[in-house]
């Protein structure tokens, strides 16, 4: 299949590793962690209004939750001295509050010391352990290993081991504003915000960043991934800092946000998965977690406050969409989505992408069969969601050049206004979601899954979603001629949307409809034990797993395509 995409070797924008912001950061790691801890402490004190009783309460809540977590949900990656640390916190807390000989100021000092210890510990825990040599090794390993696998699969015979006929870029297509991100990364600070469907995304993005010749980005990776030795190595090598979703206490969340904000101010490029976790429903993220995103807005304001007005202090948001025919975790993700449907608090963080065996099995399948991935780099925006040009200037909708600093000004001065920044973050989140939909690339598999599910839904109008999904799969089939007609109808609409710039379409969609359907059926969720869609012996369309079909169908949610049915 001939596809027009960017297969290009990019020179690194900063050839000297000492110039990499992430290397600079790791060199001054100790001081940096200290700054983070110190600033987190400040913002916690601000939140508690410098009120000692409130602070004490926060500390007690934190202690209580941490003890619960250690007891109920321990992970391999947790440090051994955890129990001791919190035991000590507890005894100091109890002592301080019962000791009547202490004056108010002395008590306050004690509480501050406890807070100090906690934020320091958290900052240390969160901070990334970027080691340049590990990074090099990992990058080589990924590229080399992937290339070997790929060529072994596609080039026949003994020569395959040495063949370089296929590179990873045949498998993973990088599209979009690649030159712009390179340009901007050499001038300002990038915050990359990709869609998130699979645990593979982290490695994939890490690889993309290196292919584009960009210095490594730091990113918040779920601490659960560090449970697995090999993943931990990769993560550390790629500059990941750790996000522990079990810890929801104020000091932790503040330290995490401060870490991110300080790193952006330091000039380190960052990567957030703004959806927070993988999309469980298979839909493109609609609601973003704004916590980390707010740190981009905050860092931008801080830079303006520090009178850094040039492009060196500008933060650029780059949305990235990743498109798959197949998501390894789809079955468990969609099950979870259906069982929780919005009540996230009732379920426990679990990780099913857990064994190295499963991962390697997937990788082998991935390389030996023809399932392609495309990664679209979106247009860069400032922290208010205005598009920027390659020199980093922001433009409003009418194409007029504007100064992002103006957004933070009242009465002629840059001011701090937490409520304002909260609204800005919300606004930015909305813009990112819009860009996700615009950059989304429709694959044949999305088309067939969407059409088939909508047809089944149409045939069972009276059932709600849950009853529909409980229908026995054996009873469902779609007549090919009708299916083909419906696919054509949806496809026409998709091209219409493409023409008006509302989404993108993969080149393999420019064939005749029968070939598209065949391609779609071959690829949709191709490695699952139960296939979401197949053609049966009579040439009609069947599903082996309706829930999975629903998952892959969801990818085209949000374009009003269901109104066609």
């Amino acid at each position, binding site marked *: 299949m001939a596809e027009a995409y960017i297969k290009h070797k990019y020179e690194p924008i900063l050839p000297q590793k000492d110039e990499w912001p992430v290397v600079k950061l790791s060199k001054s790691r100790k001081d940096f962690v200290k700054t983070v801890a110190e600033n987190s402490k400040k913002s916690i004190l601000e939140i508690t209004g410098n009120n000692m009783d409130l602070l004490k309460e926060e500390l007690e809540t934190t202690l209580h939750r941490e003890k619960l977590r250690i007891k109920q949900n321990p992970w391999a990656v947790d440090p051994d001295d955890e129990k001791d640390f919190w035991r000590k916190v507890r005894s100091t807390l109890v002592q301080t509050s019962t000791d009547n000989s202490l004056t108010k100021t002395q008590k306050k000092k004690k509480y501050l010391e406890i807070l100090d210890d906690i934020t320091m510990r958290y900052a240390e825990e969160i901070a990334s352990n970027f080691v340049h040599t590990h990074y090099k090794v990992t990058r080589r390993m990924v590229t080399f290993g992937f290339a070997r696998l790929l060529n072994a699969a596609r080039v026949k015979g003994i020569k395959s081991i040495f063949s370089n006929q296929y590179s990873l870029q045949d498998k993973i297509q990088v599209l979009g504003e690649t030159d712009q991100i390179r340009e901007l990364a050499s001038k300002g600070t990038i915050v990359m915000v990709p869609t998130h469907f699979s645990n593979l995304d982290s490695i994939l993005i890490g690889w993309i960043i290196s292919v584009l010749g960009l210095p490594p980005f730091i990113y918040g990776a779920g601490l659960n991934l560090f449970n697995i030795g090999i993943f931990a190595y990769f993560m550390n090598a790629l500059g990941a800092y750790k996000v522990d979703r079990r810890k929801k206490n104020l000091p932790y969340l503040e330290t995490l946000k401060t870490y991110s904000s300080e790193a952006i101010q330091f000039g380190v490029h960052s990567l957030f998965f703004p959806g927070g976790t993988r999309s469980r429903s298979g839909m493109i993220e609609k609601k973003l977690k704004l916590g980390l995103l707010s740190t981009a807005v905050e860092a931008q304001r801080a830079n303006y406050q520090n009178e850094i007005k040039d492009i060196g202090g500008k933060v650029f948001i780059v949305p990235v969409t990743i498109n798959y025919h197949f998501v390894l975790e789809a079955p468990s993700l969609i099950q979870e989505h259906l069982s929780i449907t919005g009540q996230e608090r009732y379920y426990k963080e679990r990780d099913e992408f857990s064994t190295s065996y499963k991962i390697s099995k997937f990788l082998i399948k991935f390389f030996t069969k023809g399932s392609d991935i495309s990664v679209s780099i979106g247009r860069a925006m400032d922290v*208010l969601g*205005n598009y920027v040009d390659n020199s980093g200037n922001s433009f*409003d*909708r*009418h194409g*007029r050049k*504007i*100064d*992002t600093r*103006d*957004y933070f*000004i*009242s*009465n*002629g001065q840059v001011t701090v*206004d937490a*409520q*304002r920044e909260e*609204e*800005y973050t919300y*606004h930015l989140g909305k813009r990112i979601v819009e860009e996700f939909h615009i950059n989304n690339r429709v694959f044949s598999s999305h088309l067939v899954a969407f059409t088939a599910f909508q047809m089944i839904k149409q045939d069972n109008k009276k059932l709600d979603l849950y009853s529909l999904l409980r229908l026995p799969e054996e009873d469902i089939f779609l007549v090919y001629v009708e299916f083909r007609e419906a696919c054509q109808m949806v496809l026409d609409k998709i091209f219409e949307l493409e023409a008006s710039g509302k989404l993108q379409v993969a080149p393999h969609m420019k064939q005749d409809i029968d070939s598209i359907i065949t391609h779609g059926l071959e690829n949709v969720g191709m490695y699952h034990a139960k296939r979401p869609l197949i053609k049966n012996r009579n040439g009609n369309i069947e599903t082996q797993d309706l829930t999975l079909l629903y998952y892959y169908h969801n990818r085209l949610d949000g374009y009003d395509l269901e109104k066609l049915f």
Partner: protein
Amino acid sequence: MTLKNSSKEKSVGVVGMGSFGTAIANILAEKSKVIAFARRAEMVDEINHHHKVDGLPINENIVGTQDPEMLCNSCDTIFFMIPSSAFQEVIRTFSPYLYPYHLILHGTKGLCLNLPEGKKLSDMKLINRENILTMSEVILKETVAIRVGCLAGPNLSRELYLGQPAATVVASKYNEVILEGQRLLRTDKFQVYGNSDIVGVELSGVLKNIIAIAAGALAGLGLGENAKGLLVSRGMVELVYLGNALGGSIKSFIGLAGIGDLVTTCNSTLSRNYTVGYRLAKGEKLSEILESMDEVAEGINTVRLIKAFVEGRGMRAPITENLYKVLFEDLKIEEALQYLMKYPFSVDVDFL
């Protein structure tokens, strides 16, 4: 903190010197220098040389101009006080001079249509929420300004002009806009409340105009206070349902900008919308009434848009629907009233 040099203190802008604009400019001028934009040269002349608008004296701190650029450069905070029919056009002339540091408030209780290029209301089969814009949405759509707010509440221009005690609501998603509105507007006789549900507050002001026309009609028919009580409370229910469907919160509708404004406009001969209803009931034709009024009664356009929206949604809004027939389809007011009396309302209050 050092005191700011007063000569550097920026002015406050007021765009549109209709009766409400003039009243607000006067209140603002008690504390700040005000630059007022008017389209007509004679009016600017009258403001600058005689300190009057249409013969009524105004505060001498108000400077008139016809130059949008000058106004935008001299003011960080600008109040747009123009009828909805001209709103989009005026905003577009100001748009090139507005920057993200501007705070923008408006006091317009109307709606705008937002249709695809080249389409008219009559071309559309159905009207969705996206086809209707409140004034703050117009500002966000047409300009780069993001810190936007609105003024709404029982603020009859004539009474404000006379300096009688009153209150208003400044609504914005941004606290700083609310605080700035309060700082600029609050006086001994003018109380300013804040609300973060800007769309709800805008809709309160917009939708109450429908009920005000109906209230005027009842009075014109010579009906009593029982009937008015009935209309106001049923009108409130309709307002809450419509407002909710358009994205406002119930809390805002039962506040000053909702109930407060509704009660005022349904009882006042100073209200333009009320007057339209009153004169209709006295037998005048809508076209005659509109010709003889020098300022717009927003309610008429609102009835037209909301009726289309209600049909698109498949909702029912009996007062609005019947008022539409009276205004545009020559239904007799008596017949509309009959219909309303027969309509099967069953529950008194079911929205709280």
